[in-house]
């Protein structure tokens, strides 16, 4: 199995497990951990793509809510400090990447004249 096949297989399994988690969570879990979801069914299919993609986070949060290890106060700690780092990082990345892109751009060598280096060896009798 080459690495492309491996990555493709991992992706497939990821989505299959995600499907199982989605089924469990939307049928059983969601009613247990979110009272606003009780009696609301139409919106649930909308959550399936998200669960397929980030099911480990879903499981982890589900578990932390069920087990009571989730700290409700943590909701009010906004992540603001990261803005500075992200803004500067993005600026450097964008300028850097576009500069690299422009600097490796090639021009079609229209002026390059093919050069004959040597005559054929006369051996084909």
């Amino acid at each position, binding site marked *: 199995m080459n690495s492309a096949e491996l990555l*493709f297989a991992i992706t497939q399994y990821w989505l299959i497990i995600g499907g199982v988690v989605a089924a469990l969570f939307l049928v059983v879990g969601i009613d247990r951990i979110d009272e606003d979801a009780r009696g609301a069914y139409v919106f649930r299919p909308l959550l399936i793509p998200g669960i397929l993609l980030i099911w480990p986070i879903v499981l982890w949060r589900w578990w932390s809510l069920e087990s009571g290890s989730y700290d409700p106060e943590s909701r009010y700690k906004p992540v603001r400090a990261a803005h500075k780092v992200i803004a500067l990082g993005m600026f450097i990345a964008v300028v850097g990447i576009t500069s690299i892109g422009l600097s490796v751009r090639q021009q079609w060598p229209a002026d390059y004249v093919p050069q004959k280096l040597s005559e054929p060896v006369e051996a084909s009798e």
Partner: protein
Amino acid sequence: MSVKYIPVQWNNNKYYYDAFMLAGVVGFLWFFLHVSPEVLSHERPINPQVHNARAFGACAFLMLSIILAIGPLARLDRRFMALLYNRRHFGVMTACVAMTHAGYILNWYWAFSSSNKYEALLFSNTSFGQFAGFPFEIFGIVALICLLVLAATSHDFWLRFLGAPLWKRVHYLIYIAYISVVAHVSLGILQDQQNHVFTAIFLVSAIVVAGLHVLAVLHERKAGDPAGAVNTEGWVTVCKPDDIVEARARIAVLPNGDRVAVFRLEGKLSAISNACSHQNGPLGEGKVIRCLVTCPWHGYQYRLTDGQSPAPFTEKIPTYRLAIQDGVIMVDPDANPPGTYVEPVEIPS
């Protein structure tokens, strides 16, 4: 703010917003695909699959640039804050456009071979050791996965389920997506294109988006929320009561990094957490409307006295104890549990 979740929330303003957005996207694609071939003087046309892929790809890039510009613009000029509302519809639309681009590309360049097209996408080019000729498709895949995660977790359920801080962290993927898209274009079509109109639009957009973010940071440094001084009892200075405009607030940064918003309403003061429980929007930049603090981002509302949303809503935020000492507002930096009642403090006349 939903009591029971529904699939999509709409109101008149959202309809206008979505109508403008759709008109822009349809305008872009229609002119790209149907008007421009008339103008091109190609002996033979570009394959429709590639033409479509380019149209959708360029459209997704521009949409992503616009979305990313709204945030810093709103911090530089408050009027843009109105565009933050409903930005998620814009984001979901962008993910759809990007997905269409990927579909055209995948079903063209990696179709028609005896290999599985997804595997072929990964193994056909392995020149990882060079810039020119680097398999730039990888960046496109990364960006697409990010956009799909963002679109798929945009429902309010996810905010409540994950909590705003974790949700925000997940949604920082937008920056990874944008950097990846810039790399995808820079090492992809930018290398090929002989006509530089798209190159110019691409470079200007990317630099503007990145530049706006830096400007917003600089602006925040200059005009950001002040850190309050701490007195001997550990309470934090905010400002004088008269510095606060009626029905508005002043924000102070507490020693632990949290922010408190002190509101003034009808001669009384109340202090609540500056972070809205929905997306941690800055409540202190909001306004009291009919006795309810209203978040400037999405309009979530809380009572000033106890930080609770009015029934039937159930959101709660922490409150703070406050006092006026020598004509200055002081706040106890230890937050009360969300929803705790605090008697408003009367401003001495």
